[in-house]
């Protein structure tokens, strides 16, 4: 009964993770996200110029050009003469933080509720599913706008609102996964051994559902950043003058035809982050063999 390494792989039906097809995506995704996170992280301690105040003499300097004051601007300046590089770096703080918080909230909420719904079924499931239906059928974005209008727009309120808007899509996945897993006999086996519901959920169901949550949550990062940008564009983001990518796009729209970089560069940043996170999610999905 000797098992060679080859044999193990066959029984396994899997390759070691680094040989799977999803790996290139995962690596590229990680690199992109890392670039963005590093950039934003550095901005907490240092930016080349101030992100909030600028030199009016150097208004709308193009990227890779020197302004009238003799300062070199890597990514140019905006209509108020503020350094785009610094604003991009600092603006990412809000965008990335909101995105991560939102996704974390979504993941927690949908894992927990999904497992409850899928394991207990019955009225718990009916009520939660009903809430989902309601959530989808009314335009939540309007309510979000209302909440922000009332409570102001701190990062947390923003994240909470966006999470409320988006958790349903992850919840549906975790719920169906929980239903499938609950019907597997290892759950029965745990019951026969004497495990109570709490132990079954914590030891068996949640570990088996986490991959699903992770993959579908990462896919949410993109839409969250875009939604945050949308809100910021509408003037509902985190209060001025601190920049966010979304508001930078909105501020730059008047200059779109002549000075593209004012809204173009934040848009590229959003695209890079969304692409990176989606590649990670996609890579994980392939590596974990989920469809």
């Amino acid at each position, binding site marked *: 009964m000797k098992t060679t390494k080859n044999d193990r792989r066959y*029984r396994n039906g*899997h390759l070691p993770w680094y040989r799977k097809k999803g790996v290139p995506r995962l690596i590229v995704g990680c690199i992109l996200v890392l670039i963005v996170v590093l950039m934003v992280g550095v901005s907490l301690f240092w930016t080349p110029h101030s992100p909030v105040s600028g030199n009016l003499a150097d208004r709308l300097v193009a990227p890779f050009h020197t302004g009238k004051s003799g300062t070199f601007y890597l990514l140019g300046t905006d209509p108020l003469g503020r350094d785009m590089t610094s604003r991009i770096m600092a603006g990412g703080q809000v965008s990335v933080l909101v995105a991560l918080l939102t996704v974390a909230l979504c993941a927690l909420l949908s894992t927990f509720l999904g497992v409850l719904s899928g394991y207990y079924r019955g009225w718990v499931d009916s009520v939660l599913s009903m809430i989902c239906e309601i959530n989808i059928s009314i335009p939540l974005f309007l309510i979000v706008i209302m909440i922000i209008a009332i409570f102001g727009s701190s990062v947390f309120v923003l994240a909470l609102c966006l999470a409320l808007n988006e958790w349903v899509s992850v919840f549906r996945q975790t719920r169906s996964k929980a239903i499938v897993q609950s019907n597997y*006999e290892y759950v*029965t*086996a745990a019951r026969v*051994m004497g495990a109570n519901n709490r132990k079954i959920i914590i030891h068996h169901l949640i570990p088996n559902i986490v991959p699903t949550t992770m993959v579908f949550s990462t896919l949410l990062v993109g839409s969250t950043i875009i939604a945050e940008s949308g809100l910021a564009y509408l003037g509902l983001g985190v209060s001025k003058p601190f920049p966010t990518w979304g508001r930078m796009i909105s501020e730059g729209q008047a200059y779109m035809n002549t000075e593209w970089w004012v809204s173009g560069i934040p848009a590229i940043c959003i695209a890079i982050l969304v692409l990176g996170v989606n590649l990670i999610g996609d890579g994980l999905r392939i590596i974990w063999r989920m469809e």
Partner: protein
Amino acid sequence: MSEQILNARPLLEVQDLKVYFPVYNKSLIRKKIGDVKAVDGVNLIITKGQTFGLVGESGCGKSTLGRAILRLYNETTGRILFDGRDITDLKGRELLRLRRDMQLIFQDPYSSLDPRMTVFDIISEPIKLHEKCGKEELRKRVHELMDVVGLPDSMMTRRPSEFSGGQRQRIGIARAIALKPKLVICDEPVSALDVSIQSQILNLLADLKKEYDLTYLFIAHGLAAVKHISDDIGVMYLGRLVEVSPKSQLYRNPLHPYSQGLISAVPEPDPDLKKEENLLSGEVPSPINPPSGCPFHPRCRFAASCGQRCYTERPELREAEPGHLVACHLFDKEA
């Protein structure tokens, strides 16, 4: 055999056990429209140290019966006595204590093991649930169990996906015997395995029975495997036991027409043994609306000649010969 049954202490006694699963309509307001009578009045006694085989076709309720004995369903009525104690309504801590003494071996070696746990986690799970046990001791005990079921030690930290079906079944068996239970319910433990692996597992189960002094309820549709491992065999049809008998008698002289049909349908691995005169016609009716009277009468070749009773009156399980019980009106006269 029958004397042995009389003398030995029953480990498990099931009295008039019924498991009815309600069926609801599919409209918005749920309304009960009937019951699936999965187990419909079963009486059963298993003595200590015995292997009781339970055979029947899919949907006859044999698995449900096994799981109802393990108290996995709320929809159960009747009485289950285990080791002289009524366990039908046990709850909480009492039920937890019962779990030590009764275990289950599953049919599907794939879905019955948590894919994210290592072999060590899986086998140690029941021990951790019931005992406070130091890390070193736990490791020692898992090591012993793996040894007993024939798994190499080096595999302790691997996950189930790295094993073949037979090895997975060994892991499931190690988990089931980890707490040295009194009764093990084997729910089709070899049906999902390859032919050459089946005999390995059957031998392992026989060895474990001796070593750990186990009592088995062995549920299967493969008659030859049941016959090999069991002492007594019960034949189930539509949620009811139709015949209970020592194995040698059942195979040599099946009394119930259903048992006769079932046994003659088994394809023997011997081209010279062609026995087809009792081939059953038709298929198992729905357990939501079982036929009136004897549930087997639509497929029974004696029903027409037997008179009205088969259509109206449900036959009880009675002793037709010493130790040989059958539920059929054909044998009422002798009783």
